[in-house]
Every structure is written in structure tokens, then in C-alpha cells.
């Protein structure tokens, strides 16, 4: 039942972003507390200050898998070129493919996404596409060679939690064999637990940890939440029902009225 990610089994179902932390030290502590198995990273222009190298050392010391993204790309060409640069720098075929289609919601441009995913998959990349809950887009991405899908729960950084739980459940039901990771929009550990209970294979969190008052503590909270949700999904939860049922047996109750 536990799925791998292009042949890699993850020790924990938590992927953690590396942006927006108050300091590198807090970032490092948050990762340790989070027990995350994957760190998302990106590329920016080298100013000559060598910040890139320092950051690289920091992440490498975390001992987690690196998942470079194409954040901020708006076209197929941009995303593909960025993916190639990321593969060389981070020395991994993994790429979190983002092609942004709307600047308010930062949601994926699913048309460009499918095109770019096909190009990259053909070129040997292992694509983690940032997508919506749309089933048809998911079909196209799988046809393009994706073995992992990363649907959003809500706009990036909104912290709203799943705005379309029905859609996420439907996606899970239609792709039982594809690794599904909820990316973007989760704001609380209970959101993460909920999607794991729904059978998702992992979640990617960044803002909800980095922008918390205490990022390190919040990292630990998400670590426990995803574990709770994953365990519950495997433990066959009771069915909810409209009527009540006594937990304490009534038989043998003393008559004292």
C-alpha cells in the first residue's frame, strides 16, 4: 500500500520547503524536528556572494532527498530550461515541475504543465508535477510519464486547507497506484492529517512551518500529524454515522432511578 517515488521509498510522508525561514539555523532545526524525508529547493541568479554554496552545504547536511522546483516559471520553455539547470546543480533527476498560470492564485497552468512534463519525462527526468485536482489533467500527466502527482489543496501560501475535499478524494480513488502528494495550501497539522487519512501518500509543507511563530515546534507538529493520518488510514477507521451509539455498555447497569 505504501508507494515509492520513482523507485525511492521515503522514510516519512513529509516533504518540507526551505524558503521563508527566519534564519538558516531555524531552517536546519525545523528540518530535524520535522523528520522530513524530502527538501524542496530552487535556483536563483548567483550574485557572486556565494550564498548558493553556503545554502547547498546547509541542505546537504540535512541528509534528506532534494527536490528542486521550477517555481516562478510561466512558460514551458522556462520550466524546461530551469529543470535542466536544476538537474545539473542538484545532481538529481527529480524535478518539482511548476508552471504558474495565474499570478493571484499561483495555480498551475495545466496546459503548459502537461506539455513540459512530457518533454522532461522523455528527457529522463522524474517529474513531480504541481497540478490541480482535475482528473483529466492527471490522466494526461500519467500518460506523459509522471508516476507522482502533486495536487494543490488551496492557493500556495494561503493556508486555507483543502478547498475541494471532494475533488481530492475523487483523485485518490481514480489513481490508486500513483503516488499522490498534496502540495500547497495546507495551513495546519489537522489539514495534513486529514489528507493523509484520505489516503494521500505524502504532503509538502512550507509556509505553514516557516511562517509560524515557532517554526521548529510547528515542524514537529506536522511530523506527528502526517504520521497520525497515515497510521489512521491503515488502521481502518470506524464509519461515521448520524445516530449515536453508547460507548459504555448498557447491559448490567444498576437500577437506581
Amino acid at each position, binding site marked *: 500500500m505504501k508507494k515509492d517515488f520513482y523507485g525511492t521509498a521515503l522514510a516519512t510522508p513529509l516533504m518540507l520547503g526551505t*524558503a521563508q525561514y527566519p534564519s538558516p539555523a531555524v531552517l536546519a532545526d525545523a528540518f530535524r524536528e520535522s523528520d522530513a524525508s524530502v527538501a524542496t529547493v530552487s535556483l536563483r541568479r*548567483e550574485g557572486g556572494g556565494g550564498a548558493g554554496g553556503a*545554502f547547498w552545504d546547509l541542505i546537504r547536511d540535512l541528509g534528506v532527498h532534494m527536490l528542486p522546483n521550477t*517555481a516562478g516559471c510561466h512558460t514551458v520553455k522556462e520550466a524546461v530550461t530551469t529543470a535542466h539547470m536544476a538537474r545539473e546543480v542538484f545532481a538529481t533527476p527529480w524535478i518539482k515541475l511548476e508552471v504558474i498560470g495565474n499570478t493571484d492564485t499561483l495555480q498551475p497552468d495545466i496546459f503548459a504543465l502537461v506539455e513540459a512534463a512530457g518533454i522532461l519525462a522523455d528527457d529522463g527526468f522524474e517529474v513531480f508535477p504541481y497540478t490541480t485536482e482535475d482528473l483529466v489533467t492527471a490522466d494526461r500527466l500519467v500518460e506523459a510519464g509522471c508516476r507522482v502527482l502533486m495536487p494543490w489543496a488551496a492557493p*500556495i501560501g494561503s493556508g486555507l486547507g483543502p478547498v475541494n475535499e471532494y475533488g481530492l478524494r475523487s483523485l485518490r480513488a481514480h489513481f490508486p497506484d500513483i503516488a499522490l502528494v498534496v502540495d500547497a495550501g495546507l495551513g495546519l497539522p489537522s489539514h495534513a492529517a486529514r489528507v493523509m487519512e484520505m489516503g494521500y501518500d505524502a504532503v509538502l509543507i512550507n509556509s505553514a512551518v516557516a511562517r509560524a511563530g515557532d517554526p521548529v515546534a510547528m515542524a514537529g507538529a506536522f511530523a506527528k500529524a502526517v504520521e497520525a493520518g497515515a497510521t489512521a488510514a491503515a488502521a481502518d477507521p470506524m464509519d461515521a454515522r448520524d445516530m449515536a451509539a453508547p460507548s459504555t455498555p448498557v447491559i448490567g447497569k444498576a437500577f437506581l432511578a
Partner: protein
Amino acid sequence: MRLYLNGEAVEVEAGTLAGLLEERGLGDRLVATAINEVFVAAASRETQELKDGDRVEVVAPMQGG
């Protein structure tokens, strides 16, 4: 020769991408490169010649979500 390095107009001596990185003190940095929106692999930097007006991008690892 005059070209654009990470969006800034610069005057350069070097004739190759590898030379440009040297000249700019980026020779030993962990970076990836593109010219005119096309990826240039590290292995090709020595042979990759530069032309006037080229748009060169040199990127390094950074935080990401």
C-alpha cells in the same frame, strides 16, 4: 565584448562561457548556466563561445517551496 550577465549589461574579455565565469570569479562556484534561454551544460562551457549581446544566466542553489 558586451553582453548581459544575469540581466546586467557587462563588458567582458573572455570569449567562452568558461572564461566568463573565471573572469567573474565564478569559476569554482556551484552554478548552472544558460545562454539566450538555452541550457548550457558544465561540460560545454569551455567550448561554448560567446557573441556580442548574448544573454547569459548563471544560477545557484537557493531556498524553495
